[in-house]
């Protein structure tokens, strides 16, 4: 099973080890701390790139699987694996952490800051790679701690309120997840006599309709808060707003994906019938999120809150793609998770640059910046257009796949979601006009162009935005086999268990459904 180098275990332990190293090193030397942070996160990136290269496309199953029994009596094991759905989330995480550390400015040399960031990276990577539900849960919860301390330690004015709200809200929702996991494992043990937390074995558990729905709700509660999905989102504008730049990048870029990833990995895999039953509800929440997020974003005067609500809208697209249950929509959702991570991170970093120069996030205080810093304005424009979904940049491909795939099975949801495309243009262009257009006042006189250092960590993001817009093939080729496997699994289980009166059981394909409308 283990194919040579243990990429995945190293991916998780490397940043954790670096965090530990930071903890024991003397805190005086800020340069040393910075170096450890860079080295740890860049080495992790190197391993992630190597794992991506080693990943064989065309195979939809888990690869590089590592299983080490941990608590054998309880069936808990250190089981890691990667497939097309998690691969690029891992790579994106590995890219965003060094970038976020680069964008964190002065406190990039604080000992505890570096340590928390590295630990957070380990938690995120562990969540994406775990095949064992309990190990997943531990990593999933572990991520809360560093974020809490990052917000309270290096955040803005209302950091205490924001951090507490974030922590308690997500922790509360996770309680449901833990109960769900234990119940599922219990049911599985009853049926087979085997106690295991391995998601691959638990997928074969037979669940009655009610059991499935209840377990689905328990799991989804945690993921819906984490993502967030409307109406469980109100912690996020506060948390994003009060976080330091690096925290906001990781929260919106990486940790939001823990929620949507959890839905795709665990809900779809473990409760296909409940997913099919409740898909209209989740699709509706997704669509509401798209429209509602856009509308609320349109009246925000604070750039970070604006991006937070825009994020809610974009996550709505991902949720729609996940529950449309077609190949294109689900592939689009996975791709869009990566896309959203990249351009949202870029937006938060750009906003942080503005704050560093002028000390404000408010559109009321900012004007005419394009005159002072055309290059920075150009990068902002590119990122904004990617976020709007202009073709040729990365946001378009994901959005197009999601919407065209959703249209096949859930036409009217897709139509409503398409309206979100209009709204996205309104709030982002409005904000751009307020901040970058116009004539600079004396306040903006001191505004300076993007520095080389800032350009250095923006460059990979800009490159990815353009590359994935023009040439997403290499990424999609690795995503689709896993997505196809999952869609087939959902259709198979969901339809096989439904007694079809008077006719043989046929796995009705979505295209046939669509054609009859």
């Amino acid at each position, binding site marked *: 099973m283990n194919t040579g180098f243990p990429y995945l*275990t190293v991916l998780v332990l490397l940043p*954790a080890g670096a965090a530990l190293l930071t903890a024991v090193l003397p805190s005086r030397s800020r340069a040393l701390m910075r170096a450890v942070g860079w080295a740890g996160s860049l080495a992790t990136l190197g391993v992630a790139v190597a794992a991506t290269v080693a990943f064989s496309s065309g195979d939809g199953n888990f690869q590089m699987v590592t299983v080490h029994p*941990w608590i054998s009596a309880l069936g808990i094991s*250190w089981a890691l694996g990667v497939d097309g759905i998690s691969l690029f989330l891992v790579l994106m995480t590995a890219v965003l952490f060094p970038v976020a550390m680069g964008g964190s400015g002065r406190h990039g040399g604080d000992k505890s800051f570096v340590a928390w960031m590295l630990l957070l990276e380990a938690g995120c990577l562990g969540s994406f790679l775990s095949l064992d539900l309990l190990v997943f849960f*531990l990593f999933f*919860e*572990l991520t*809360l*701690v560093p974020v*809490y301390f990052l917000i*309270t330690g290096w955040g803005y004015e209302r950091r205490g309120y924001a*951090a*507490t*709200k974030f*922590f*308690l*809200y997500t922790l509360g929702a996770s309680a449901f997840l833990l109960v769900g996991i234990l119940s599922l494992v219990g049911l599985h043990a009853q049926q087979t006599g085997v106690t295991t937390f391995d998601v691959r074995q638990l997928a074969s558990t037979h669940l009655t309709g009610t059991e499935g729905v209840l377990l689905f709700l328990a799991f989804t509660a945690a993921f819906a808060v984490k993502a967030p999905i409307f109406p469980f989102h*109100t*912690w996020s504008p506060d948390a994003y707003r009060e976080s330091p730049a690096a925290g906001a990048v990781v929260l919106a870029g990486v940790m939001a994906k823990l929620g949507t990833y959890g839905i795709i990995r665990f809900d779809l895999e473990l409760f296909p019938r409940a997913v099919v039953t409740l898909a209209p509800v989740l699709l509706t929440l997704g669509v509401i999120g798209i429209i509602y997020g856009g*509308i*609320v974003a*349109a*009246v925000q005067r604070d750039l970070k809150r604006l991006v937070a609500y825009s994020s809610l809208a974009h996550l709505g697209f991902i949720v729609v793609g996940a529950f449309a249950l077609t190949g*294109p929509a689900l*592939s689009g959702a996975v791709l869009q998770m990566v896309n959203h991570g990249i351009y949202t991170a870029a937006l938060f970093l750009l906003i942080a640059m503005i704050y560093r120069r002028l000390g404000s996030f408010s559109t009321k205080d900012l004007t*005419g910046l*394009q*005159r002072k810093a055309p290059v920075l304005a150009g990068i902002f424009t590119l990122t904004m257009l990617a976020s709007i979904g*202009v*073709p*040729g940049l990365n946001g378009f*491909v994901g959005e*197009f*796949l999601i*919407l*065209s*795939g959703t*249209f*096949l099975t859930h036409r009217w949801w*897709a139509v409503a979601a*398409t*309206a979100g*495309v*209009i709204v996205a*243009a*309104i709030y982002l*262009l409005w904000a751009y*006009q307020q901040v*970058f*257009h*116009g*004539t600079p006042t004396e306040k903006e006189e001191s505004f300076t162009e993007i520095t080389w250092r800032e350009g250095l960590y923006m460059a990979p993001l800009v490159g990815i935005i353009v590359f994935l817009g*023009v*040439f*997403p*093939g290499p990424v*999609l080729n690795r995503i689709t086999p896993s997505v*196809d496997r999952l869609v087939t699994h959902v259709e198979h289980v969901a339809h096989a268990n439904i007694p079809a009166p008077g006719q043989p059981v046929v796995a009705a394909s979505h*295209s046939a459904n669509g*054609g009859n409308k």
Partner: protein
Amino acid sequence: MLHAAFLIPLFPLVGFAVLVVGGRRLGNPLAGWLATAMVGLSFVTTVVVFAGLFERAPGRRSFTQTWWNWFSVDRLHVSAGVLVDPLSMTMALFVTGVSTLIHLYSIGYMEHDEQFPKFFLYLNLFVSSMLLLVLGGNFVMTFLGWEGVGVCSYFLIAFWFDRPSAASAGKKAMIFNRIGDAGFLLAMFLIYERTGSLQYQTVFARLGHVGGDSLVAIALLLFLGATGKSAQLPLYPWLADAMEGPTPVSALIHAATMVTAGVYLMCRISPILHLAPDAGHVIAIIGGATAFVGATIACAQTDIKKILAYSTISQLGYMFMAAGVGAYVAAIFLMLTHAFYKALLFLGAGSVIHAMNDEQNTKVMGGLRALMPITGGTFLVAWLAIGGVPPFAGFWSKGDVLLNAWGYSPALYVLGALTAVLTAYYLGRCYMLVFSGKARWVEARATGDGTSRGHAEPALEADTSNPNVPHERIAAPAGPASHGRLHPHDPGWVMTVPLVVLAFCSVFGGLINLPFHPSFVFLERWLNPVVGRALFNPHLGAGSEIIFAVIDAVLALFGVALAYSLWRTAVYRREVEPTFLERAWFIDWSYDRLLARNSTRMAAFTSAVVESRVIDGAVNGFAVLWRRSGTVLRRVQTGYVRNYALGIMAGLVVLLAWVASRTFS
């Protein structure tokens, strides 16, 4: 040599890339020359490919070139590549040709602008996008170009972004276009659902399985996209505001090329429209209505660029009318000739605006013909051409459209004929106000302080609140000191050469598709394999064609005469410039009052009440409830989140350490 097709959009894209990296180092005027050369190369390549296509037999003049697989999931395959056929090459030829001339002109026009390299960078990106739009081999490639030109239009309208009006106009254009784009997207989803493909040729081959209602829906959704891009009712108001952009931009993007993309799209999907006559009906009616409404508004505008903008809206309406009735060749014919004379009109207007130190109000111009003979002469040619005076290009192309309209419905013809009279009239009014009569700018400038733009009439001052009257520019974007007396004169050769070339095309452009004898209709024979023959006037013989030609000529001359008699000496005639028309039928105003303000209010309410009070209120209320009910457990719970956090942390560290030790043991 057909394989060189990929170079057509590539040259301007390379120009764009070079200017992004080194535009500022190249500077003025080198950056402009580089951009012009790139578009020129693209034009030459287009000519070569066009010639190669021409040499082939008529049935073999269509081929696809696939560059790479853009994205592909399940049956959804979207390749990056082009479709080379007579329609796309005709479009590419006039787009590159007109673009080259306007690039050249811009070198002179933007001479004093501090953002000179950036202007050409956007312009090259625009040309590349426009070429992808017309050459795209599938709906998604066309959409790529479609959005690309929209984005460039946004950049270029807001080019002088320190003027709030320009910034707002750019945003407005983008948002109106996005509304149309939603229609385009939905059409693509429906096409994919019904045919399993988005490649033009595959889709058209499978139309038999699609079903009538779906075809109508697809056609109308794409038309919704077209109304946004091509400024048709009800999504037209952005185009008038788009005049905030530099004048070469108005000529290139908002007259000759981008705004015709919707018409191109209708011709491209002609196989769908053939099978969906109901959709054609809607398109023809909207087109006819837009042609008429646009022309009436143009009659009462005072800003030279606004007159031309509403004229463009009106002419585009004609083109949609033609496409709606199935006369695709007529639509393309009008598009080509319109590109010549409308670009000419805008470039002429640009010369005038330059000469008048950024004055755009026709009421304070006058008497420029003698001072600017080349500009005046070419503007006169353009007026007669767009007015439909024989034998200028517009006479033939507009006549073709009207003839087909008659075959479809006499009512449509009457609407078109009325518009024809108005067209000859309002441009005549414009010409008279600018080029003949007294030189009113002499006293206007003498009384003004030289820095603000002098309005001759106090009545006009009150109009600054009017969204259809140009806002004062905060700073003259280009130009020498505006103090002292004006000395209007023709611009240098880089600006006059394009004027003369376009004037030549406006005179002789009709030659590509003359009626009367089947051997003269070159354009029709060239395009027919793509768009098919769809004439609704089979009963019209050569005799009736001549009768209609005579009627057209009389209508045009009537309009010209009307303009001459009313505006030869007069400057103000409120009786023919009613406020209702000056304010553009109050359409934009009502959008602002009814839609924009109410939706802003609604959004504010959503944020302040629904979000903050209801949803977040519930969350915080729950937290308060929890804290109060938890007094019993207070001894166990410290209530400090950091203690919980550290507790979790400590537990996890221990567990992970154990995991690690087991992993490596």
